[in-house]
């Protein structure tokens, strides 16, 4: 590795990103919580005992746990249809906490600002963060500001970290998928990534593209309330690398296969059209307001109903099944009835989008 340098593709969320995490970060930051590789770390509350990443033993009272996560946002352009970098920074961290089943409570916000950024732009972004946080029911309780020389950053980068609480009866992780589980998606795929992409390319469509950027904690709360405890096995928000990459991560972490019906995956016409034009595949395009759930079969119908009843989940659908066959591999049944591998994203399909 000695003469290698970091390539853009190391940040794409695909295979090179995974290699970087596994071969470098995990090697140095080796601990069982991080090794779970979930969207948020789930930790014991101070003063309460027992390893957080294991379910409570039978007969022992379960404790609430802390969920903790962080993410940085470097999207360009800073403002886009459906959101801006500030809204994205709040929603992204709220969603990472929500995917561990946590109720998000507190966020921090760090700003890296390039000299020359109009103050009005910054204020618009901060106001957007405040209103997004209020709607999501979280508070931004700590912050930091750094200004760097012109050229040392691209206008504005934001880091957010977040803390939430996981209820005692909630046990979700990327490694808990089981054969027979039903795969659900909460709505159409590719909206955020294609919105950013077409903004950059100056493409316009009859039905305009709008980012799906949204906080998912409300939807997750409804979902958890609608099904018996323990029946939601995994939750993920398919951001960088898109749905295909998320499903591959879940298949690998849980040691199961996943079968997906291409026709069942909802894609907006404007997203399909722009993907066709630019030679992209919506399965690999980022989402910022969608979740994928692996759900025990007996709870699938209640879960789907709960998702569809939520304002963000009207187009939720069952898109596939978890199987004991082909562990670690995701297989797509195409519209024509053929079966083929649906692999992870390799390299960079898109420029900076989140």
């Amino acid at each position, binding site marked *: 590795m000695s003469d290698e*340098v970091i390539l853009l593709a190391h940040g794409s969320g695909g295979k090179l990103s995974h290699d970087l995490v596994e071969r470098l970060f995990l090697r140095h930051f080796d601990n069982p919580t991080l090794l779970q590789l979930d969207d948020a770390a789930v930790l014991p509350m101070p003063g309460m005992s027992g390893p957080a990443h294991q379910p409570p033993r039978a007969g022992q009272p379960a404790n609430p746990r802390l969920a903790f996560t962080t993410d940085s946002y470097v999207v360009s352009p800073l403002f886009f249809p459906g959101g801006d970098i500030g809204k994205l920074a709040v929603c992204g961290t709220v969603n990472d906490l929500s995917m561990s089943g946590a109720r998000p409570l507190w966020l921090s916000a760090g700003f890296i600002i390039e000299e020359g950024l109009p103050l009005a732009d910054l204020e618009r972004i901060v106001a957007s963060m405040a209103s997004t946080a209020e709607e999501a029911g979280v508070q931004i309780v700590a912050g930091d500001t750094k200004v760097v020389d012109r050229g040392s950053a691209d206008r504005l980068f934001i880091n957010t970290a977040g803390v939430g609480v996981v209820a005692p009866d909630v046990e979700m992780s990327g490694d808990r998928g089981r054969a027979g589980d039903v795969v659900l998606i909460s709505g159409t795929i590719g909206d955020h990534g294609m919105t950013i992409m077409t903004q950059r390319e100056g493409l316009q469509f009859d039905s305009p593209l709008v980012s799906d950027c949204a906080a998912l904690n409300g939807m997750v709360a409804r979902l958890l309330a609608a099904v018996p405890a323990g029946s939601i096995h995994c939750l993920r928000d398919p951001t960088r690398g898109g749905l295909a990459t998320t499903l591959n991560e879940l298949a690998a972490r849980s040691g199961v296969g996943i079968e997906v019906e291409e026709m069942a995956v909802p894609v907006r016409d404007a997203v399909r059209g722009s993907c066709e034009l*630019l030679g992209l595949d919506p399965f690999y395009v980022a989402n910022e307001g969608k979740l994928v759930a692996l759900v025990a079969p007996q709870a699938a119908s209640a879960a789907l109903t709960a998702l569809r009843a939520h304002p963000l989940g009207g187009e939720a659908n069952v898109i596939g099944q978890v199987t004991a066959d082909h562990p670690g591999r995701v297989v797509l049944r195409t519209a024509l009835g053929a079966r083929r*591998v649906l692999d992870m994203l390799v390299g960079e399909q898109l420029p900076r989008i989140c």
Partner: protein
Amino acid sequence: MKYIDEFRDPDLARALLGRIERRSRQPVRLMEFCGGHTHAILRYGLRTLLPDHVDLRSGPGCPVCVTANADLDRAIALAHVPGLILTTFGDMIRVPGSAHTLQDAKAAGADVRMVYSTLDALKVARVNPDRQVVFLGVGFETTAPTVAAAIAQAEAQGLENFSVLSLHKLTPPATRAILDAGEVQLQGIIGPGHVTTIIGADAWQFLPQDYGVPLAVAGFEPLDILRAVADLVDMIEEGRPGISNSYARSVSPEGNPTALSIMDQVFEVVPAEWRGLGTVPGSGLAIRPEYARFDAGRRFEVDPGPTREHRGCRCGDVLRGTVTPPQCPLFGKACTPARPIGPCMVSAEGACAAFYQFGRDPL
């Protein structure tokens, strides 16, 4: 979705598959010239739906893949010229030359930018008047006219800081080279839809006439391809090689005269080196002397160093159709899309990338 769903209709696909199944008696080997076809075939799983005795082989129709290492090295050396901005299509950035890629050059400080069209490269030149902007031009008859138009536009606008390294290639001579070599017995060819939109279906008449091999021009939707296979099977079974055109919504017999004329105005036909095929006479496009100042090859002198081929890589054989990607010993092991050794594993049109991404056995 209009203009897409009609060409992916499962019932019509089943009908065409049934027709192929009924009509096809003898084993046939067909080559899809175009990498875009290889990707569509694998992405929609058509190989698994066709009868076993209909063997599809990928051809040399991936511009990035057929670019010789020596040419790649020259482009990478150009990128390192101080102050120069090298613009090119996305795939080219990741293709390994003898030792490095343009991506490596970029990470080491070279200014390499991905563009979607040559006109974007012109824009880069316009907003950076004090820097030299080179467009690395790869592609077949489909992209060459747009590059020619950009050069003509640069001349009309007096844009002095723009030039093109032309690695453009022509498809009919490469098809001839494959048939002349006779290494792989082909009973029919699925003709490249976009190329033929430019050059016209009549440009392929030499195939049935000189070689007795039928060609079916196809679009890139599953039904286009199945229809082309069905037409080829019919012509082969009837022993009447000819040209069929299932992509009439885009392709005419005579092609696009405007595109052909701008191409001819700016480029001249020269021999070109192809990965896998070697030097093919009359298969390359060089910038005419009248436009010499837009020729990056003439404008910049660079020393790319000695050329090396990638050890064990069978991209050349894959491009000639003599092996399928999984028959290469590096495929999926030493060579993957994350760490590609040969260009066929990099490009969105590369056969190895298509087989790796879509074609591996699901079980």
